[in-house]
């Protein structure tokens, strides 16, 4: 059955072909691109509303389309579509969404649309440019939709190609190095992930499939593992992959995901890729691509391998803490505004790992919320870096001064973006970071050593320091001669900023609808998480 979920990836795919095929003028290409991305945003918004408020869900069909035949708790996968494919081998087409994937799908659709708007004046090979954006959107949405390992792997890898070309063709002076480094790093992560998919497939999937769906055949269906793990942990007493077997698989998946996330020590591709990428590329790279890593950790590492997660939580926590501290200090030393933002992303993704490692309900919810919030804020920040480069021709912090006088609108957005990113109460990322810390402090794993939570807290202070220090240098003082005729934000840039800033406040003041959706996911999928 193919329905709206499949349309979510088919729409941008068709769009990319059409834009690439017949968008011969810049005007045609950008209008078609905006049309398709708005259509996609429409679908995604419908889905988001349906998950926030059940009244909207009627037209989407019955939730949890395929429930396992044996009784017991099940993963609240709200909507699923399933088509047989290489059935002899147990490869099928399965897509589905729940409270984890819908916010990310919506974020993808939103940021793609805004990135297209932001690049309204793109002159260099526009049809390839906008076509690649839609193709990237297709792959990203596909990753969040996929519930069969082979579909997941296909979309996961497809993300690389448009990004490679976006950095390679429209990138900065050092783009060759950055594009190849990005490609190789994330591809290595991917092939390691493939190995663990193979072993899940051959060694464990048949018995899991037997326990959940009653057929003793190898399968790549992720729902079998999700259901199996859930019933295993919720005391329904079914046999599942043993702990000893879960640990290597967990480690291999974690490797792929922390390369993507990225976390120290595999983060080095990120600053290079960001500095060279065009603004829209950076927005999607930081806004959504990194979220694939976080998504994978929740969907696979926590969702399918809970026993290993309970034993290896410390690895997540340590990696997260290291990323937060390291990135914060590195940010203090940056002179390139875009590089600074790139490193700050590494730090903010550390929150995700720490929240996941806390293994508490609030910590995990905070981490998932952080994925969403960081996507919005970092999009603003990278757009700012693009605007300032467009307007003044440089991103070097020492060469920028007194922009508050020359570019007042820009300065306002910059202040909001920076404050949101450092977690000012009332703005969106405050909630997620706060929840992560509460979760980490209340983590049952830490028990007697709650003082250790002070270590990641240091990063909050340093983060505030580098943002304020940067703001002081860029915004205040007298503008030098060469900046005097810098223009302020362009009209289409204002649209993008307005939407994102509105979201920062909206989510900051009314986080509950989003948290409710995430809560439905965590309470259904992780009944085994610790209190608080």
């Amino acid at each position, binding site marked *: 059955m193919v329905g709206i979920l499949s349309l979510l990836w088919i729409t941008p795919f068709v769009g990319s072909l059409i834009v690439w095929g017949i968008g011969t003028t810049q005007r045609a290409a950008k209008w078609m691109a905006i049309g398709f991305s708005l259509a996609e945003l429409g679908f995604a918004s419908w889905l988001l509303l349906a998950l926030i408020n059940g009244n909207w869900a009627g037209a989407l069909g019955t939730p949890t389309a395929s429930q396992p035949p044996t009784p017991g708790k099940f993963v609240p996968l709200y909507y699923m579509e399933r088509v047989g*494919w*290489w059935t*002899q*081998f147990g490869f099928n087409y399965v897509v589905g969404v729940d409270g984890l994937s819908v916010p990310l799908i919506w974020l993808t659709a939103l940021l793609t649309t805004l990135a297209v708007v932001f690049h309204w004046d793109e002159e260099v090979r526009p049809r390839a440019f906008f076509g690649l954006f839609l193709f990237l959107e297709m792959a990203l949405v596909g990753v969040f939709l996929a519930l069969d390992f*082979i579909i997941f*792997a*296909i979309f996961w*890898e*497809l993300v*690389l*190609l448009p990004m*490679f*070309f976006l950095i*390679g*063709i429209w990138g900065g002076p050092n*783009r*060759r190095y950055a*594009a*190849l480094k990005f*490609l*190789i790093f994330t*591809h*290595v992560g*991917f*092939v*390691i992930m*493939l*190995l663990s*998919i*193979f*072993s899940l*497939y*051959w*060694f464990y999937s048949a018995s899991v499939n037997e326990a959940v769906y009653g057929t003793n055949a190898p399968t790549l269906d992720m729902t079998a593992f999700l259901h199996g793990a859930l019933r295993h942990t919720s005391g329904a007493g079914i046999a599942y992959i043993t702990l000893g077997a879960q640990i290597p698989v967990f480690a291999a998946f974690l490797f792929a995901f922390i390369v993507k996330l990225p976390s120290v020590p595999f983060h080095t591709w990120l600053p290079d890729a960001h500095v060279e990428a065009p603004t829209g590329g950076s927005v999607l790279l930081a806004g959504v691509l990194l979220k694939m890593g976080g998504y994978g950790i929740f969907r696979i590492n926590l969702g399918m391998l809970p026993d290993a997660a309970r034993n290896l939580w410390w690895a997540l926590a340590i990696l997260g803490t290291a990323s937060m501290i390291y990135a914060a200090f590195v940010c203090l030393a940056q002179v390139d505004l875009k590089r600074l933002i790139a490193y700050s992303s590494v730090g903010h993704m550390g929150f995700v790992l720490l929240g996941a490692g806390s293994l508490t309900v609030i910590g995990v919810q905070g981490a998932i919320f952080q994925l969403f919030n960081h996507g919005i804020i970092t999009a603003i920040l990278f757009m700012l870096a693009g605007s300032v480069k467009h307007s003044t021709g440089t991103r070097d912090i020492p060469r920028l001064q007194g922009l508050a006088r020359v570019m007042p609108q820009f300065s306002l957005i910059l202040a909001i973006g920076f404050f949101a990113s450092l977690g000012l109460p009332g703005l969106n990322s405050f909630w997620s970071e706060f929840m992560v810390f509460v979760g980490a402090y209340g983590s049952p794993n830490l028990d007697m050593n709650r003082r250790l939570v002070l270590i990641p807290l240091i990063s909050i202070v340093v983060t505030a320091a580098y943002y304020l220090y940067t703001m002081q240098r860029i915004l205040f003082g007298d503008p030098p001669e060469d900046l005097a005729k810098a223009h302020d934000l362009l009209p289409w840039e204002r649209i993008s900023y307005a939407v994102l800033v509105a979201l920062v406040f909206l989510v900051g003041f009314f986080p509950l609808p989003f948290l409710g959706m995430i809560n439905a996911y965590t309470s259904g999928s992780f009944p085994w998480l610790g209190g608080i």
Partner: protein
Amino acid sequence: MFLPETILVVTALASAVLGFAWRKRPEALWAVALVGTGLASFITIDMMGLGVTNALHLSLWPSPIGTRGNFTLELKMNVDAFALFFQLMFQLVALLVIIASRGFIRAEEPHQGEYYALMLLAVVGMMFTAAATDLFVLFLAFETSSLSTFALVAYRKRDRQATEASAKFFIIGAVSSGIVLFGISLIYGIAHTSSIGTTTDLILLRGPPGLTLAGHPEIEPPLIIALVFLIAGFGFKVAVVPFHMWAPDVYQGSPTTITVLLTAASKNVGIVALFRVFLIGLLNVQVDWIAALAILAIATQTVGNIVAIPQRSVKRMLAYSSIAQAGYILIAIPVGAVALQSTAPGDRAATVAIYGLVGGMLHVFVYAAMKAGAFLVVAGTESRGIADDMEAYKGLGRRMPFLAFSMTVFLLSLAGIPPLGGFFSKFVLFSSAVNAASFNQWFLALAISGVLNSALSLYYYARVIWYMYILDPEEGAQKETVPRPIEAAVFIALAIVMLTAVLAAFFLGFLADAARGFFGF
């Protein structure tokens, strides 16, 4: 059963004779070769089970073939589903080469009759190799294809590079044939039979009626020598490291259409011979060769990929990459062998062996399509005077949009990027190695080597894409038109590579049956 081969032989002879009469009309020769090959391929597909003749109520040949193609006793040949699959692959490659030749071989070049005749005879030799169930028949068929290709490499006899390549190829080919023959004669001396058929009373060194190693320790030393000779001899044909040195020179020197034939078809003849000889004939003595082949597979992948990295010539880079690809295909042999020899319950062993062989066959097919496609793109660029140096590929995306796009797809598929064909065949192949790890944990190394090598190979493939799309063309370079026939051939290969995910869904049942029949389950 042998109708496709007969048609091809007739076409070849006709083409050779008509070559004298129609010296001024090469397009007529081309049409004859094309029609003959097309007809033969159609019959092969129909025998595989397409069933067009059944639908028309004609019974010209058995469809699907089942066991009716088994002539092990009379002709030492068995045209089973496995053989048909490989025969189809060889014919498809020939078809691509013939189509493209129209655009690549200039009309005024001499000896076009012989060109097509030799090519078709080479294909007939390949097809017989796939069906052979006797070491000597296999050897003869093998030589038929080799001798034709030696001459084809030197088709442009005024071209110094081509004649050098031909001489090199001939010497290596002759030596390796000698080595194979010596290995075969040793085997014959030990076992008093040269049959590698699946009928129980003829199987060499397998099961109670034959000779088993355990009962006769005295045959071990000559057997090891024979194994070494067989592996080395076939290794030369497949260009397995360390017997690969000739391949880049020959591939680079040959006319590019012939390179396609060599890399996509001729190499796979060696593969199919290895499948037959080792997985059927010598299965019971695998203690001696299983580790050797596994190590060779890993070495071939690694060396091929590492040496491909610094290459500046696209043809040489593709040559090294095809060495690496052969290393991936080799994985199927130790996987099948270790499963069949295990003490695990029959079902499980059979599953692993079949899955591994299906992976191997799938990769052979996809490999043939993507490698043929990549070299055909090179042929297309050469026909417009673009050198095969990477620098010359700058901005190809604008000068020849279709060829550059196809090349990108072929290269990404070679690197195993989804959703292209190479991803799926590697997925099945490597995961079968993980599966075999339940019999012997060292097999995990095969899978790890495979995926890491794929990651490594992406670097040099991506570099070509970089040149084609990201760098701007040289000053004054303009959009070029590519000969239609070459574009058509590339298009066919492109369709196969891009649609594997869908097409294979229909073929999987056939492949699994072929593998089952091959092992005699």
